[in-house]
Structures are given as C-alpha cells and as structure tokens.
C-alpha cells in the first residue's frame, strides 16, 4: 500500500506544469538593473504625468533605505535586485484599439491558457484585462461597461485618461512606506488594472485580470486599483501563470481597494504561478500586498483566494474596516507541494463601530513543503461591538511537510468579541480505504477529500473560477499522500 502511494506521488509530482510554455514574441525591454534611470525609463515609456514620476522616485529613495523583511516563516535565497529586468513589453501592442491588431502569437498564448480575448467567442459575460509581462494587452467588453459608466482599463490607460482618480487614490491604502515590496512596486510598477464603479451601479458582468509572465529574467510588478462608489457592487477575479524556467522570477504586486458607503467588492484570486520543479528549482517568488479599505458605512470587502502556485508566497490580503457596520471577509485555500513555501493569511483592522470580519484559512501541505498561516486581527478602542471569527485549518499529506499558524490578536475594547479556531488533520488511511472500497482509486479519493476540505472556500468563488480551482487542486495534489 505504502509503495503504491509513493508511486502515485512520484507520478503526480513528475507531472508537468500545464502552463509552462514560452511564447516567442519580440520584446522591448529596459536595461537590466535598478536605478533612477530605470524608473525614468519606465515613466517615459508610459508617458506619465509628473506626479507619478515623483511618486516613483520617492518610493525608490525610501526603498533604498529598507532591507528585505526576515520575519516570515520562509527561507528566501538572497535576491539580487540588480539582476532583474524591470520592464518588458511585447513590441507590437502599441496603440491597440481592436482585436485584429493584437499580435497573433499573443492571442494564441491566451487561447492556450483558456482565455479568449475575442468577445464573440466568450460564452459567459466576463470582461478580461490581459496583462503580459509589464503591459496590458487587451481589455474586453469595453462597450458594455461604458454603458454603465464603469471604467475598467489598464493602469497605463487610466493614468492617461483619468489622472485625477489615479492621483487621488494611488497609495491611499498601501503607502509606499508600507513594506519593502510595496516600496519596490511603487517605484517600478509597469501596468495593472484600474476599475471604477460609479455611485449606485451594480457591475453587470464579472471583471477579471489575467497576468502572464513570459520573458526571461524579468520581474512583474503590477498594480491594481479598484474604487467602488456609494451603493455600487463589483465582482473581480484575478488569475496568473508563468513559463517554467530554472531561475526564479520575481512578482511583487499591489492591490488597493476603496469601498464607499453601502458598496461591496468581491475579489477572487486563483494564483497559479509556476511553482518550480519537484526538486524546488525555479518558480516564481510572489510578494504581494493586497489591502482594501471599507471607507463608508455598511460597506463590504471579501477576499477569496486559491493559492496553488509560486515557489514562495508572501501575501496577506487585508481589510481596514473604517466605516461603521462594515464587513471584511477572507477565504483562502493555500496548497504547497514539493519544496514550495507559503506564508499567507490576512489582516483585519477594525476601526469603525459594529464592524465584522471573518477569516477562513485552509492550508494544505504535501511533499517537503511548508505552509504557514499568519494573521492579524486588530480591534481599536473606538471599534465598539465588533466581531471577528477566525478559523485556520491545516491538512497534512505525508510526513515531510509542515503546517504552522501564527495568529496575532489585539483587542483594545471590552465590547468586542474575537474567536479563533484552529485544527490540524491528515487524510487518514481509513478515509482512503473507505473510498477504495467504493471503487474510487487513491488518486481520485485524495482529490475528493481535498476538495471536500476546501469546499467552504471554493463555494465562495464565482462559478467559472470554482471549476478551474477545483481542477487545479486535484492536479496539484493528487496522490501526494506518503
């Protein structure tokens, strides 16, 4: 039985990452390395207004005074920040206004990833902003969105067309002084998505951004900014993949969400960056700062994430619950296999009265991987009658992996209630045998059990994503019980 299981592990872990191909596209790149000239190069390429160049330069000079954070439960090899290309763009995509002008190679790339940029071919109503390396390739469904005065475009376009909105909100939730990677991103970010939902508008379709790293030696530093005005609603999804390469590649993103009175933003992520091979060679270093502010009363932000990729993940999507009665949610499934490392969780900062937050974290560790939950729940003095419920579950597959929990709870008033539950479990031989006895082989049984374990989170994903996520869990983990 045990040797059978080991065979299955080998089979699965030797399986290839499905999205590991490289597209051969002519690229325009910044010279390797990072200095003020690099930043001026990027800013000039994007024809940016002065305020943005100043923002970048300030962030850069602050970053130079900082050191890589060491507090996470991660072994991070030394990163040479001069050995990265900070800007890479497919050459032919300037001045795109219709799909016919997109490089066919690029279209093919996204088709291979299962993302059609040709609107008429899409079955479901999801608007996509496709970003390859440093720039946005194409945003679909612009007309539908324009009817509702919704702005959904690349960050670069937003800087040109809506500089006031960008100036007002950029860095308002995640300042460039927030952390090392936030400072770096603020200095060199190249593109990303921008989304503005006007007052009272319920966005009729799902919005989604698809990130793809393609070029070698490059880093991806994108920035997403979502503003939901009073009484509005939007569901936003984010997906990502990268080619298989022996060297590690850096991804450091920032997502900022601003939500006004009675508005709601749902943010879903399926993160599937290349995780490295089974010996732990290669893979993406994923350092991401995601934070939203519930600025208005009765507002709501929910983060749902399924994290299966990246060699290293460092990510704590959080909510600042400033408006009275505002609600923050964090639902996460994080899978690590082979030599992957994840240190992920959430921050819930309660400032307004009667604010509520929920954290559901489901960690799954297999192989030699390490999976940590790290969370901060802070309830300030003024946040009377606030509540938090946190549930952190870990599922271990095999006996060479690790699961860790680092909760930090800080309550400053007496009327609030904070609950924290944590469990650690293993898939038992009895569960597997029970499935086997019904005719289900061990691989499918593990898929079934893991999906059952993660169901609470998966069911919060938009339908289209849920199916993808389910398959992804199965692929990442089948047979990894040792």
């Amino acid at each position: 039985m045990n040797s059978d299981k080991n065979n299955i592990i080998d089979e699965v872990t030797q399986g290839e990452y499905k999205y590991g191909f490289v597209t051969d596209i002519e690229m325009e790149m910044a010279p390797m390395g990072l200095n003020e000239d690099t930043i001026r190069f990027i800013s000039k390429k994007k024809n940016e207004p002065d305020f943005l160049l100043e923002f970048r330069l300030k962030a850069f000079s602050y970053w130079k005074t900082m050191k890589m954070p060491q507090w996470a439960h991660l072994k991070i090899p030394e990163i040479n920040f001069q050995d990265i290309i900070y800007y890479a763009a497919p050459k032919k995509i300037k001045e795109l206004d219709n799909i016919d002008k997109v490089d066919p190679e690029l279209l093919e790339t996204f088709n291979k990833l299962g993302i059609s940029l040709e609107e008429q071919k899409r079955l479901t109503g999801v608007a996509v902003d496709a970003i390859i390396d440093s720039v946005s390739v194409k945003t679909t469904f612009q007309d539908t969105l324009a009817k509702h005065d919704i702005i959904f475009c690349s960050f670069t376009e937003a800087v040109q067309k809506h500089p006031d909105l960008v100036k007002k909100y950029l860095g308002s939730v995640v300042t460039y002084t927030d952390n090392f990677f936030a400072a770096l991103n603020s200095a060199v970010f190249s593109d990303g998505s921008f989304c503005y939902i006007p007052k009272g508008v319920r966005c009729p379709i799902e919005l989604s951004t698809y990130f793809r790293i393609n070029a070698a030696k490059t880093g991806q530093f994108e920035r997403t900014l979502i503003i939901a005005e009073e009484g509005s609603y939007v569901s936003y999804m984010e997906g990502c993949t990268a080619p298989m390469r022996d060297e590690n590649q850096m991804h450091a993103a920032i997502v900022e969400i601003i939500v006004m009175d009675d508005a709601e933003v749902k943010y879903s992520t399926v993160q599937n960056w290349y995780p490295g091979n089974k010996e732990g060679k290669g893979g993406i270093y994923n350092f991401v700062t995601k934070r939203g502010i519930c600025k208005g009363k009765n507002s709501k932000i929910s983060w749902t994430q399924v994290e299966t990729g990246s060699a290293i993940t460092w990510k704590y999507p959080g909510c600042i619950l400033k408006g009275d009665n505002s609600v923050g949610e964090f639902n996460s499934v994080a899978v690590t296999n082979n030599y992957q490392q994840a240190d992920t969780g959430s921050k819930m900062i309660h400032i307004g009265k009667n604010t509520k937050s929920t954290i559901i974290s489901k960690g799954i560790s297999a192989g030699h991987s390490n999976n940590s939950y790290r969370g901060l729940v802070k309830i300030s003095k003024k946040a009377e009658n606030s509540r938090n419920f946190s549930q952190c579950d870990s599922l271990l597959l095999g006996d060479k992996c690790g699961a860790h929990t680092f909760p930090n709870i800080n309550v400053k008033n007496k009327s609030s209630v904070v609950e924290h539950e944590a469990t650690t479990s293993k898939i038992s031989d009895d569960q597997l045998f029970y499935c086997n006895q019904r005719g289900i082989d061990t691989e499918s049984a593990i898929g079934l059990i893991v999906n059952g374990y993660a169901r609470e989170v998966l069911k919060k994903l938009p339908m289209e994503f849920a199916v993808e996520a389910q398959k992804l869990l199965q692929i990442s983990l089948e047979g990894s019980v040792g």
Partner: protein
Amino acid sequence: MLLNIRNLHVSIEGKEIVKGLDLSVNNGEVHAIMGPNGTGKSTLALAIAGKGEYTITQGEIIYKGKNINNMPPEDRAREGIFLGFQYPVEIPGVSITNFMRTAINEHREYKGLPPISAPEFLAKMEDKKKLVEIQSKLTNRSVNEGFSGGEKKKNEIFQMAMLEPTLSILDETDSGLDIDALRVVANGVNKLRTKENAFVIITHYQRLLEYIVPDFVHVLYDGRIVKSGGKRLAVELEEKGYDWIKKEFEMN
C-alpha cells in the same frame, strides 16, 4: 461458486488473526458469521475487501473463479464486492451525492462505460432512497459527518443499493441500532436479495437474523470456522451462548 476461501491466514502487524479459514458462498445465498469478540470476524471482512495492512500469509481468496489475493481494493469493489463498514468514516465536505456519483462513474469506467448522465443518476438515487427508506435530505449531507449511528448504517445500505454489488459483506451493521433502524437495514437487504447476489452478514446477535433469514450460519472462533449449520444454529447460540462452542473447540 461466487466466493471460495481456502485455508486463509491473515496477519496484522505480524500478529496472526485469521488462522486457516475455509468458506464457500454460492450466488443467491445468505451466510451469517457469528462468534465472540476478537475472534477475527472483522479481520476476515477487511481481508476480503483488501485493506492494506491485512496481510494474507497463506491460503487464497477465490472470487468469481479468480484469485484476488493481490487485487487492489478499488478493483475488488468494481468487481462487485461491497463492504458495509462497522465504523463508517466521515469525509467532511463531500456530499453523499457527489461521493456516489464519483464511485458509480469509476465502476462504469472500469467496465468501459461512459459516465452516468445526471438525470439517470438522480432517478437512480430517488429509486434507491425509497427502497432503503432513507430521508431525501440525507444525501445532501457530507458523507457520515455528524450522522447518528443509525444514519451511518442506513447510509451504508443505501450505498450498497446504489452500487448493486454481487457479494455484500455487512460487518456488524446491526450493532448499536434501535429496532426501527434494524428493520430498515434488514428490509433493505431483503429487497436487494436476488438469485445472483450473495450476502455475508457478520453479527453478534440472532436478532438481525429474525429479519434476514440466512441459509447458513457459521461460528468463528480463534480465527477459524469451528461450526456451521442452518438458521437454527443461530437460535441455539442465542440461548446457550458461546461457551459450549469454546469447550468443544478446546477438547478437539
């Protein structure tokens, strides 16, 4: 002959539990296996189903004319062997509906059939739920999670009905059941009895055998079948206990 077990020896972690057991079951028959605690009844059941740590050190299990000693448990299931567990495990987050659909499709794939269609599957579920008298909402719940003892056992019978096995082994399905649940379990078995399929019912009590009338009753003691007889043997055991069997065994 459907099942033919010859001189079977089974060890768990080096300790021999089943010590030279013979048992023959024909299609259409119901066999009851009785005996005191710790004599190897559950070990026999799990060895037939193919649980990993139950090592066959000697002898053979012949099922449908094939030696299945080394057949993986999922293939034994797909060949029509069903085990109703004494302690069914919980699988959180996996609904019975999803679980059964996965199982049925794996059976069908093994037989070279396409996956079952949604309407066909749902109709089958409704049909079998009625047959085994289980509540409709039970199948929306996660497999055995938070089930009462009775619900767990009824769920086992429901799964048996869905998978339509040729050989069903019920391991103390009656233990811990109240009289109503016992009747439901027994009715389920009786309705599923055909000329083709067979049952091996492991039980401590004669009570279940009042509802499911066996063709043969065997007494398992110290890893062997020490006495076999017709249904009257069960009544005799109920009246006299197992001591006379132990004495008889020790004298031989």
